[in-house]
């Protein structure tokens, strides 16, 4: 099951980006996805923090996988994840205090992001460190890409800017709803629809492509 060949590592690395994308395909980790993607900067900060926590805890869980007793594995994962979240929290507070303030409790809530816990239970605890690392990097990248898609469209429509740079000039009429929580739901639904259509077209090019 866990033969570490280069092909296998590559497969684990790429699956999270598209085929098993944590947000667009698995629909995991919806809480940060909906809550903090109202601007590109917030999306990047949340994506990077989650990426760091996911990669760190996957590696550690994989290294410790033979030592963790089955009965208490979930609580052990949580402690490992919480350690990395604390690191990420402090790092963000020191480096980008403004963004840290805006993200607020959502940084601490990375602990309960089901994407991270899911990867530990489903993958890192059953595979050697190199594969776990590849899986975590792929999933983390997929998560970042998805957050950027949402954050980008919501900031462009909701504020007329990208990363704070105004795109349309002063006469832009912002779509207020896009930076509010309903905008997150609407945009996520639209993006999920788009990806479902793309996947369907890929699978049955003749039937659907009308």
């Amino acid at each position, binding site marked *: 099951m866990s033969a570490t060949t280069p092909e296998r590592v590559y497969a684990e690395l790429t699956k999270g980006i598209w085929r098993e994308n944590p947000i667009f395909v698995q629909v995991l980790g919806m809480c940060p996805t909906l809550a903090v993607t109202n601007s590109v900067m917030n999306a990047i900060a949340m994506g990077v923090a989650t990426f760091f926590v996911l990669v760190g805890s996957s590696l550690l869980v994989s290294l410790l996988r033979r030592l963790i007793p089955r009965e208490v594995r979930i609580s052990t994962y949580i402690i490992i994840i919480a350690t990395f979240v604390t690191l990420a929290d402090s790092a963000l507070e020191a480096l980008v205090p403004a963004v840290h303030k805006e993200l607020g409790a959502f940084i601490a809530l990375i602990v309960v992001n089901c994407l991270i816990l899911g990867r530990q239970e489903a993958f890192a605890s059953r595979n050697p460190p190199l594969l776990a690392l590849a899986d975590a990097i792929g999933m983390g990248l997929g998560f970042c890409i998805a957050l950027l898609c949402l954050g980008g469209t919501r900031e462009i429509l909701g504020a*007329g800017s990208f990363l704070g740079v105004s795109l*349309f000039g002063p*006469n*832009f*009429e912002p*779509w*207020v*709803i*896009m930076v*509010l929580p*309903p905008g997150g739901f*609407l945009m996520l*639904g639209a993006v999920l629809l788009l990806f479902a*259509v793309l996947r369907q077209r890929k699978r049955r090019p003749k039937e*659907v492509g*009308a």
Partner: protein
Amino acid sequence: MTTGQGRLLLQAAPFLRRGITTPRLMTEVIIGMGPVMLAAMYFFGLSALLVMLAGVAGAVAAEWAFGKARPRGASLRDGSAILTGLVLALTLPPGIPLWMAFLGGAVGLALGKSAMGGLGQNMFNPALVGRAFIQAAFPSVLTTWSAQGNINSFFTIRASNFALPFMHPAADAVATATPLGLMKFERQSTDLLHLLLGNTAGSLGETCALVILICGVIMAIRRVFDWRIPASILLTVAVVSTIVWLVDSSRYPAPWFMLCSGGLLFGAVYMATDPVTSPITPRGAWIFGAGVGVIVVLIRLWGGLPEGVMYAILLMNAATPLIDRVSQPRPFGRGRVAA
């Protein structure tokens, strides 16, 4: 459904049909809305026509785009998309940029109807979904009411209609307040005669109470919709606001003002009666209407917004499946206990 070599004809219920098809019903409603559209053009000039065209274009475009993905294909022929666009446009202010009206029609149809599975499956009135979206996305535009022109300025189109996509409209020089806005924020009532004849500011289709009333009565007699729903809404608003008015007539508006102002009549006749999103049982129709009426009065008198018809109808749309379930008529011959 026939068996027995033509001697015994077995047929499943229903046995009595009225022969009404969806396209015919939609056409009847659109014709029934004709006078309201004409009144809108009389009061607001060509701007009204342009906004209506933009709303219909948005709705039809979305119906076509999303209909392609459905197994049965787009259902443009039944006219429901056109009706949705028209109803939406008639609830918009005359000075709204056309791109917003188009967007509202498209979002209303895509989100309110296609995403739910098409005509007959939608939970919320698509036109109101579109309007709620515009209200949430562009609150400032939907609270800017440009004043009426007169018949001489029919061809003068409001400059704000032509704001470029994604840009906000130029400030309208003759912006004014609706009767409900005046009542809410300045405690100033409007003449009943002005409300009846439509000589006030407001959404395209809502200003002229008399035209809507006449169209509503004719459509109810032709049984285009269930007369119980508008009757129940108006009756509830009348009763509740009379009670409130009798308690303190200096603070609260008179019941006739409540009935004739804002979008109440338009909403009661053209939106609450949507057969897909309102209860099908007679008792359910009364409950539905009473709920809408109570919420309208609550929002208007004690809420933050001057007008609440849109949210009242949307909220009761959400309650419709439940109302249908509790208001099922008792089958003939069954005891009350068994139900």
